[in-house]
């Protein structure tokens, strides 16, 4: 298949003078948002005890451990701002991302031992479940840096129980093990109760000599028998018991290395524990990149920084999607699938780091005369029409058949509406696309370039496809909402306005409510909010989008569960005709 993939068709054009000039203000606005997001991320990193204080206790911080463990320039953080239940700590208290260890891709997660010694907090189990889902979808090892003091007891009601509560990750670890996906755990510090299960549930345990893991901690042992309340005598008893257990917390490294043997390895130094992980990762099953690469990796012909000129932060402004994609994929080359059909949608094969990937995106702007063919009104990119949705269905089905990972680049305002759209079967064709995606079983990632709105957000590779979407990233221009705020305000209050006017009542109170809806929609759809609630897994600088796409391709091809021989692929041949 070398003639198909080694050199594909060039696409994209150099920026014109006028474009560069017009784009300056836009670039500044995008970078302003990125600076705000970066400041928020740095704030998360600085939470809790200062690094020096942790180091003075003879421990590394989580960030130092990650820095030591992960190969240089391969860390791709995820869920940095994720805090769906608005914890006062500002974090779910786990830090995660994808990165390479000893040259192999892994999903990596650890407890932030600077914050409450790595306690369980509200929203944390949801964060962990996203991470275990990620390892499952990409079929790459999950690596844990365990250092967990157990539940923040004053808020246990927010996270201890429930279907996706704090115990669910232990089931997920069992599930990953049963699927043949290894979970490696480096264990540091004191890990009682929940922390103990965080430590015991992975596949292979690498322990630091000072760590302990236990069913219950000293606090639980000393206060096990409820007596209906506390008095001075029972308090004194507690003090003595606590002193005793404080000096000998249960489940020491010696017990679990020498007696139970839970710990397969025990290390004197923290760096030694991390070296142990590195050594194991070196031997993890992984195809040599050459097994799947279809060409030598190469950068796009056009500078990725030009995305700041090309992607308007103003949601009303149109742009050329193909120009965006040309600045993200290897060599700015592609094989476009059905370019003359369904003009609102781009579908094509591209290369990321030499690997074959499928890209799907929303084209923007006026779609030309007589489109959509079933209606008398003009078609505008960003919206989905019959042809575009049929094309995506076909493309996804063929990608599944050829085992090609899919990257969605979404900027959609919704699906066409009205009786003409209903007659054109858009409702069912949209759901058919969801059916096609769900049955594809190939890894997919979403780049939410700008707008995710209405059902189109779901069916264009949205994170709601829990078993197919590995992860989603947003940009400084990302907005997510069921519909535009003004549209929502009209839907909610238009009839009320008529009623008020007919009753000769003042309209101002209703107008005020409508404007509040608009303001709320704006606030609750912007990038930082999307990241905090988990609508996307990370807000990424435009200049770093290609890094994440490259990492996705590397993960997807590291150890795929099934293979289509390149010379058995039909999609490239259908494109060729």
């Amino acid at each position: 298949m070398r003639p198909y993939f080694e050199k594909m068709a060039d696409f994209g054009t150099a920026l014109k003078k006028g474009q560069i000039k017009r784009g300056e203000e836009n670039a500044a606005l995008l970078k302003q948002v990125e600076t705000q997001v970066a400041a928020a991320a740095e704030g998360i990193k600085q939470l809790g005890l200062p690094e020096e204080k942790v180091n003075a206790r003879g421990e590394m911080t989580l960030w130092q451990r990650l820095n030591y463990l992960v190969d240089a320039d391969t860390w791709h953080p995820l869920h940095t701002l994720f805090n769906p239940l608005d914890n006062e700590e500002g974090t779910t208290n786990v830090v995660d991302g994808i990165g390479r260890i000893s040259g192999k891709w892994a999903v990596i997660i650890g407890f932030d031992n600077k914050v409450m010694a790595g306690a369980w907090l509200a929203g944390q189990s949801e964060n962990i479940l996203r991470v275990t889902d990620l390892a499952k979808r990409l079929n790459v090892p999950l690596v844990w840096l365990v250092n967990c003091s157990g539940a923040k007891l004053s808020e246990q009601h927010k996270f201890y129980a429930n279907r996706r509560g704090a115990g669910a990750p232990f089931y997920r670890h069992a599930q990953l093990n049963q699927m043949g996906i290894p979970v490696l755990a480096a264990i540091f510090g004191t890990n009682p109760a929940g922390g103990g299960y965080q430590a015991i549930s992975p596949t292979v345990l690498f322990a630091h000599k000072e760590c302990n893991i236990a069913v219950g901690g000293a606090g639980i042992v000393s206060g096990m028998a409820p007596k209906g309340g506390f008095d001075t005598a029972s308090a004194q008893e507690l003090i003595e018991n606590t002193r005793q257990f404080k000096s000998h917390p249960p489940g020491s490294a010696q017990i679990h290395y020498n007696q139970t043997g839970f710990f397969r390895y025990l290390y004197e130094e923290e760096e030694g524990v991390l070296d142990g992980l590195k050594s194991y990762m070196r031997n993890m099953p992984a195809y040599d990149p050459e097994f799947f690469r279809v060409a030598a990796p190469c950068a796009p012909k056009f500078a990725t920084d030009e995305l700041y000129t090309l992607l308007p932060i103003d949601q009303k402004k149109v742009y050329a999607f193909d120009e965006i994609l040309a600045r993200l994929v290897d060599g700015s080359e592609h094989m476009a699938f059905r370019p003359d059909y369904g003009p609102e949608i781009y579908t094509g094969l591209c290369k990321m780091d030499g690997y074959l990937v499928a890209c799907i995106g929303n084209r923007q702007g006026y779609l030309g005369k007589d489109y959509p063919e079933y209606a008398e009104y003009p078609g505008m990119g960003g919206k989905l029409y019959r042809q575009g949705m049929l094309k995506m269905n076909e493309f996804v089905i063929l990608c599944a058949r050829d085992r090609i990972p899919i990257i969605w680049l979404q900027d959609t305002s919704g699906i066409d509406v009205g009786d003409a759209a209903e007659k054109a079967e858009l409702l069912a064709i949209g759901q058919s696309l969801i059916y096609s995606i769900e049955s594809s079983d190939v890894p997919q990632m979403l780049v939410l370039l700008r707008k995710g709105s209405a059902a189109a957000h779901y069916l264009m590779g949205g994170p709601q496809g829990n078993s197919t979407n590995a992860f989603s990233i947003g940009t400084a221009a990302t907005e997510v909402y069921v519909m535009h705020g003004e549209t929502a305000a009209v839907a909610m209050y238009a009839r009320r306005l008529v009623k008020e006017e007919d009753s000769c009542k003042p309209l101002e109170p209703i107008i005020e409510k409508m404007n509040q809806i608009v303001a709320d929609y704006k606030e609750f759809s912007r990038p930082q909010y999307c990241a905090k609630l988990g609508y996307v897994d990370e807000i990424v600088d435009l200049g770093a989008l290609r890094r994440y796409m490259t990492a996705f391709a590397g993960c997807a091809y590291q150890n795929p569960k099934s293979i289509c021989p390149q010379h058995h692929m039909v999609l490239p041949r259908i494109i060729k005709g």
Partner: protein
Amino acid sequence: MQHKMVAPMAGKVIQININVGDSVEEDDEGLVIEAMKMETPIFVPCNGVVGQIKVKAGDNVEEDDVLAVIETE
């Protein structure tokens, strides 16, 4: 020689960035039309001088209406 800038679709002219007599360059953003909640820029087709502007901000235009004329030598 005259080069017409025409409306690619029906919509409302919301912005005019050129004046009669202005020297303009190819790909300058001449006007902006709003339709279907989106703003579509109309680019100057060639280097030249703005000879005529046939619309004003707020005008509704039909597909293929002439919006402005650029004159070249």
